[in-house]
């Protein structure tokens, strides 16, 4: 009796970062990954993964947007009238995406140009809306925030893996550093070659379809490695 009482008390006490919070943050990285398990947000995963720097910026932007829209929605969840909750969520997401877009435009203009429409398209990213509906409308702000950050990271990790593979095989570079294949001055000076010069960059990896193959292989490997994800039915 005494034991269960203390337990109940413990549960009521707000925990800043307990087991549940840790699970919220780490689950989307593996067991509940938004891209490889829920298969959401594929559009942007295909479009921004030609370069690792692009994918990294996109990952940071999405993580911030999901995290903070989850936080704000959760804070307002008792005030939002249920008949307009989708519209309210959209206003919150659109505001945050525009804030991110304006900030990027001020901080790194070439990157903003490079990502062009895809920053704006975070508004329609299914992951954001999905987390608001599924989690933030029913949970407290801190946990919602963690859930958002976790999902953003889960999205970002997959994006970076795809981008690294595509840039490495398609351009022979990573984060813009030339690792192998002919150097940029190859046509001017045929002596200017970097290491592993026998490798000819495969242009297919720069094109959109390659993102599909790479993603499919990642999903396959992920399911082979994590047997919990295999649907036995």
């Amino acid at each position, binding site marked *: 009796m005494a034991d269960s009482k203390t337990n109940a008390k413990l549960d009521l006490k707000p925990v800043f970062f307990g087991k549940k919070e840790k699970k919220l943050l780490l689950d989307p990285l593996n067991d509940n990954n938004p891209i490889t398990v829920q298969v959401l947000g594929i559009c942007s995963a295909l479009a921004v993964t*030609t370069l690792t720097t692009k994918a990294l910026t996109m990952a940071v932007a999405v993580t911030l947007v999901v995290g903070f829209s989850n936080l704000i929605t959760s804070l307002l969840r008792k005030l939002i*009238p249920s008949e*307009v909750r989708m519209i309210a969520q959209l206003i919150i997401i659109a505001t945050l995406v*525009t*804030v991110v877009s304006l900030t990027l435009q001020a901080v790194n203009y070439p990157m903003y140009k490079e990502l*062009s429409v895809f920053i704006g398209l975070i508004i329609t990213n299914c992951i954001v809306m999905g987390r608001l509906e599924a989690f933030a409308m029913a949970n407290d702000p801190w946990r919602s925030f963690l859930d958002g950050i976790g999902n953003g990271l889960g999205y970002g990790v997959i994006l970076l893996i795809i981008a690294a593979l595509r840039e490495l095989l398609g351009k022979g570079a990573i984060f813009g550093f030339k690792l192998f294949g002919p150097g*940029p*001055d190859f*046509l001017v000076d045929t002596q200017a070659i970097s290491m592993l010069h026998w490798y000819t960059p495969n242009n297919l990896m*720069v094109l959109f379809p390659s993102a599909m193959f790479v993603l499919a292989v990642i999903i396959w490997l992920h399911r082979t490695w994590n047997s919990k994800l295999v649907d036995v039915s």
Partner: protein
Amino acid sequence: MQKYRYTVLFVLILSATSALILAGMYTGLKDIHEKNAQLFKKRVILKAISPLLDKPVSSLSDDDVEKIFQEKIQQVVLDMEGNPVDAARVAAAGYKKGDALSVDMAKEFKKPEAERLLPLYVYKKGDKKYYITGVMGRGLWDLIWGYIALEEDKNTIAGVAFEHAGETPGLGAEIKDNPSFGQQFVGKKIHDAQGKYHSITVRKGGAKDPNFEVDAISGATLTSDGVTEMLQRSMKYYDPYFQKVK
């Protein structure tokens, strides 16, 4: 009606808050955005003369870029007859600052041909002058544009820089991403031996004429054709001016 009062009020307050935040942020960051856009444009222009610069454009600092523009580049705006126009005329076309940088090529591209204004940048190195012209046309999906630098003879190409709004990465986007595409233009001529305007052709299946042709990008026929059309049409706009300054 009573039933929806709260809902309507909530949506109104939420929208107003959102509008307020965004309007504030937009106004606050406007100057930085404009400065960034200008620097971005300046870097693209410098890319056209990158063989003449001490350092590659990507390793120039923002201050270096501003310095080159202030000290070595003279900005001229031309009308279609090849006459330089003054700042007041440029301002009348809706560009506040009145210099070549403020001329919006996309806006000019939509005007009837006879009314267009042309930006021209004259780069001075030693006692030599290089002429950087601005060109614009259509690629496969969207606008493509670029800057073509000509040597003092106003005939030989010293360097090019292409940009695009939405060509396919790995295909059409190679006009910008692949330095070896732009490299091919160096040394090509825009006039034939008789001094008649000829322009450059981007040829599918390999360049045949060493003076006037470059190799197209495989898989990007329409973008390559767009580049040919753009050069053929827009480089000609500068011809009257070049005839006059000769």
